[in-house]
């Protein structure tokens, strides 16, 4: 248990630090890379939770596929100008700042509320059912069966959402088809 706790604090610390630097950093390129570090630390946390499949998928999809696209966008927009934008347009930045602060307060309240409820999580109130045992989560076969039986609806809805987003992107990018 000792090592597990140590690893939790290590990778949790890395994730939190990297995430903070993402928000506080001035260079968008570095922010994107630190976000990848944060995702990698989360993947390590999944491994300590006996769920290597989720960890690897986290790396492949988030750190691998999605962040590469992010990186492309940042690279091609050549977004070096954030500093000037902030210092030059302090007045115009006020409103988004207020909205952001409000959202942060809501998020904090939500977190506190969720954390206060953790004692009830063992009853299955938060997980929506009895907690499956750790070995079953790691098994890809069990995961696949659950995904296509119990969670089939959520799965299909997600895939429709992604298809819609993709079609939308193509329509927006190509004016005449």
């Amino acid at each position, binding site marked *: 248990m000792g090592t597990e706790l140590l690893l939790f604090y290590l990778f949790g610390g890395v994730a939190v630090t990297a995430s903070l630097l993402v928000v506080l950093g001035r260079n968008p390129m*570095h922010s994107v*890379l630190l976000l990848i570090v944060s995702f990698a630390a989360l993947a390590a946390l999944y491994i300590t939770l006996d769920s*290597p499949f989720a960890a690897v*998928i986290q*790396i492949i999809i988030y*750190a*691998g596929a999605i962040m*590469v696209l992010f990186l492309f966008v940042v*690279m091609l927009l050549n977004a070096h100008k954030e500093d000037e934008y902030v210092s030059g347009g302090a007045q115009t930045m006020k409103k988004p700042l207020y909205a952001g602060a409000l959202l942060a307060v809501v998020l904090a309240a939500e977190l506190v509320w969720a954390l206060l409820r953790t004692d009830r999580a063992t009853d299955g109130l938060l997980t929506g059912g009895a907690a499956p045992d750790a070995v079953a989560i*790691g098994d890809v076969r069990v995961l696949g069966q659950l995904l296509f039986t119990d969670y089939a609806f959520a799965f299909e809805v997600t895939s429709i959402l992604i298809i819609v987003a993709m079609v939308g992107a193509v329509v927006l990018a190509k004016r005449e088809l």
Partner: protein
Amino acid sequence: MIPLYIAQFGIILAVFGLLLVAAAIMVYAERKVAAAIQQRYGPYLVGPKGSLQPIADVIKLIFKEVLRPKGADRILFMLAPIISATAAFAAFAVVPFGAETDLFGLIDHRISLQVADVNVAVLVLFAITSVSIYGIVLAGWSSNSKYSLLGALRSTSQMISYELSYGLSLASVLVIANSLSLTGVVNAQSGTWLGFIPRWFVFLQPVGFLIFMIAGVAETNRAPFDLPEAEQELVAGYHTEYSSTPFMMFFLAEYINMVTAAAVATDLFLGGWHGPWLPEYLGWIWFLVKIGAILFFYIWMRWTLPRLRYDQLMTFGWKVLLPLAALNLIVTAAGVIYFGN
């Protein structure tokens, strides 16, 4: 008796060293085979028949000056080759290269000849491949040079496009083998049909093997898919601005990636360390022979086929290879359900 962890450590060191040696041999073989195909001698001055040429090259590269272009991002410029090389070495960690062994009775337990036997090995391989893309992107961006940037963009879009077909052709093998672990896949290929045909998946999955090999060449940025470093257009692609040791790391990563791709192809389609005549504990000899054959094929292809045009490459990847791979997976899955395993 040697304790288990020392044996494990020994295997890690051996894999690391052998990968370096393999990269050196590949460089030499590439130049010699190229020379033979073009009716030249190739390197022949350093060492017997020029066989020490790679070592001479390494020494030359180490003693060169490390140059950094003006306006390059200092941290990322140095980080990029490190990411590339690390990912290349890490990918081989999950690749098994021999049957379980007790190292001729030196240790109590039987250990498998690989660094880490992960039960989601194939996915780990993919995760590391997707991370290795960052080495190339960052090299291209941080160099502050248009050739590097264009090379990196091409390289990345090529790798992302062909990764899909790569993954799908691999998935059909996993469906047949009923396992996500590479050791499991290899062990599913032991034995023979009718007494003489080895039960290699290449015979069950000829289309899958073809797709895997083509996508593998594209993944490793080799000719005829070496668009990222198309010399006539891009000087050298993403590593144009690199010199000395950082350049060497890219070079190393490229050759190690080839070795890994060949090793994975061997494990998935060519029965890994299974082969006739040799006892199982010498299976790694078969493994080396098979890898050598695939790598020779890579070199042969490079010096035979001209480079594709970029739009041809993308059209081929998305409109031919990907549908074919998807179809192959569907047919395989249907076959597995119909015939059982």
